[in-house]
């Protein structure tokens, strides 16, 4: 034998999965939602998304190269995904420099301070979003009107979101069925004809993306399905108890950031639990906290907070919820 053979331990073959491919899959799955947002919010959506993605990638590059002096890993695509998801959580008329701030915060504080991809306990995009929400509450909660102002960016005409209208009405003691007339019907909500953040408006587009993620085995169904189901059941109970004061469960799952949160934000691989049972507990927690904030809290929307709160519990869930081992107990078939 003249040539040297490679000697390494088994296994000697590997699947064709890679971090890059996972991230690519996520990006592809976001295409339908992106097309909807381009149609509904037009120029603003394009500007915000571009700035957010570019800033995230540059921030990661700069931090890895000049501050942490480690290997630059932007090619794994995770910064692109964070940038897209952050943009999807912002209103389309947000001033560009706020987007930059949010993106730098998401990557810098949300991800790199913990050591980069895989080590961060909180979803970086949500860290960025909540930072912006707390710093710029007015700009973060003014939403351009769908479709009609899509050729404008900063000077787009604004209006309230369905959840905002709802909260306002409840506060003023108006009867809900009246208020519902001002809100797009369920079908319009499903398709995305409403005010809101870039990526949260069309449940249909998000669900399409979800199917793609399932098909590519990037996600399992547990977290999205259980999050949405928990919200549905919880708001259903409230609605049955008092239909005058509470919106229908269908309204709740179609509005606000619930679909986006359940499918894309809560399922972030790094910050969600490792076992199926853990995922179900985590998802149920997100669902319950979301409804509590929406119905009883000061904010009209609570998905982001709910996810961040449950992110904090993930290490605990991973510690106590173990997969069932083979042969843990004798099974006689």
């Amino acid at each position: 034998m003249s040539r040297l053979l490679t000697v390494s331990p088994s296994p000697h073959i590997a699947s064709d999965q890679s971090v890059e491919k996972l991230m690519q899959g996520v990006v592809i799955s976001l295409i339908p939602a992106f097309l909807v947002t381009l149609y509904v919010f037009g120029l603003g959506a394009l500007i915000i998304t571009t700035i957010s993605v570019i800033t995230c990638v540059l921030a990661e590059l700069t931090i890895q190269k000049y501050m942490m002096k480690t290997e630059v890993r932007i090619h794994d695509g995770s910064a692109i995904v964070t940038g897209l998801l952050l943009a999807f959580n912002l209103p389309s008329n947000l001033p560009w420099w706020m987007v930059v701030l949010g993106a730098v915060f998401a990557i810098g504080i949300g991800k790199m301070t913990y050591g980069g991809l895989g080590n961060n306990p909180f979803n970086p995009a949500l860290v960025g979003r909540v930072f912006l929400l707390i710093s710029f509450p007015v700009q973060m909660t003014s939403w351009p009107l769908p479709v009609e102002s899509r050729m404008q960016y900063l000077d787009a005409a604004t209006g309230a979101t369905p959840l905002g209208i709802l909260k306002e009405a409840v506060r003023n003691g108006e009867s809900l069925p009246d208020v519902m007339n001002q809100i797009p019907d369920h079908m319009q909500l499903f398709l995305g004809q409403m005010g809101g953040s870039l990526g949260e408006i069309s449940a249909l587009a998000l669900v399409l993306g979800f199917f793609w993620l399932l098909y590519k085995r990037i996600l399992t169904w547990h977290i999205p399905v259980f999050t949405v189901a928990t919200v549905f059941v919880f708001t259903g109970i409230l609605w049955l108890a008092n239909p005058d004061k509470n919106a229908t469960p269908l309204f709740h799952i179609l509005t606000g950031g619930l679909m986006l949160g359940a499918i894309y934000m809560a399922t972030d691989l790094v910050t969600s639990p490792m076992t199926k049972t853990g995922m179900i507990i985590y998802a149920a927690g997100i669902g319950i906290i979301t409804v509590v904030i929406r119905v009883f809290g000061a904010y009209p929307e609570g998905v982001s907070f709910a996810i961040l709160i449950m992110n904090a519990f993930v290490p605990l869930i991973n510690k106590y919820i173990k997969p069932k081992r083979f042969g843990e107990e004798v099974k006689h078939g």
Partner: protein
Amino acid sequence: MLRTFHKGGIHPPESKLSAHKPIQVLPVPGTVAILLSQHMGAPAKVIVNKGDEVKTGQIIARGEGFLSGNIHSSVSGKVSRIEEVQDVSGYRRQAVFIDVAGDEWEDGINLDTNLDKEIRYDGPEILKRITEAGIVGMGGATFPTHVKLTVPRGKKAECLVINGVECEPYLTSDHALMLEKGEEIMVGIQLLKKALQVNKAYIGIENNKPDAIEKMRDLASALDGIEVFALQVKYPQGGEKQLIKAITGREVPSGGLPVDVGVVAFNVGTVFAVYEAVQKNKPLIDRIVTVTGKAVKNPSNFIARIGTSISDLIEAAGGMPENAGKVISGGPMMGKALSGTNIPVVKGTSGILILAEEESTRLKTQPCIRCAKCVTVCPMGLEPYLLMTLSERSLFDRLETEHVMDCIECGSCSYTCPASRPLLDFIRLGKSNVGKIIRTRKK
């Protein structure tokens, strides 16, 4: 619905290049090197000396001690030396080198190939013949068969599970054996049933071998108490515990043996060896070896004498490919990479797989993205990402409480990890350390 096991598992590409290739007899080589450790336990005690003339099938080393087994000469000729040779694990171990002269067999071995269906011995005699013949598990585990057949006191064997799964990609030796020696395997199963005093035997074959399933079903239908199960294709279904679960629904307890749930399992290759030992008085001196790989000219199934150099096998399959990067003894999931090819075939050599250079290098390790894929695919319900971290940090107590010893080293975790993390490498390291700790504690 096809049966299968339900926890974890993966679907690597099957790559069964040598399926449906007939079994070819590899010519007897000029010299053989017969290792004295071809089984799990201590090496067998050599009973021939340099210069001795031996015949094919003559015993040359006795298995003494619990998990040991007899070793026979696979050729006739003269013992040229007894010295160390490298084995598949890279260790140097004692071997008997024999220069071949002719092919003269030991008296009493029946060389005709007629099917002998008559069951003429009682249980103890069957067991004695199996012990004499030095049969070990041919699926690769090399656990001595006679030990498996001796059911510990207080336990009871209720059924036999026969492993025709061959879930490792590329390998086809069991498939070829079932197609060509199905009748003999059926006799072997009856012998084993008798030795264990059980009434039921279940054969598990994955659904990617429909011809073998049909043939074995056909043969079993004429017999009492042998049933064939077509199984959904899933790795590592050939793992003893997974196969027993798939067929019987029983779960071997953590740290336990199949017989704890009333099952004794054998590979079809082992069953064939049992047939030959009991019916033909032929000790285990040859076996079927698949030689395969995408770069190999003629992927084939050979019947080779134990002690034949792996390089001879590769020659017979068309020679070492130009772009060979890795030579593996066994399959791609659990096989061992070899540093050279001048290594003798042993009783546990199920195949030789040659990977091209570009298939041989591992991808660069990336940070864990906590995707949980390794947890999902682990057939033992472990958390590979956690075991690797604990092993990296030498936290052996935690490793033990996280049940690292349950790992069957199937490699599904490393295979799946999108970050190309060498999970099993570290888990093995952890296992060997925890194993040492457990052993010292017992002392």
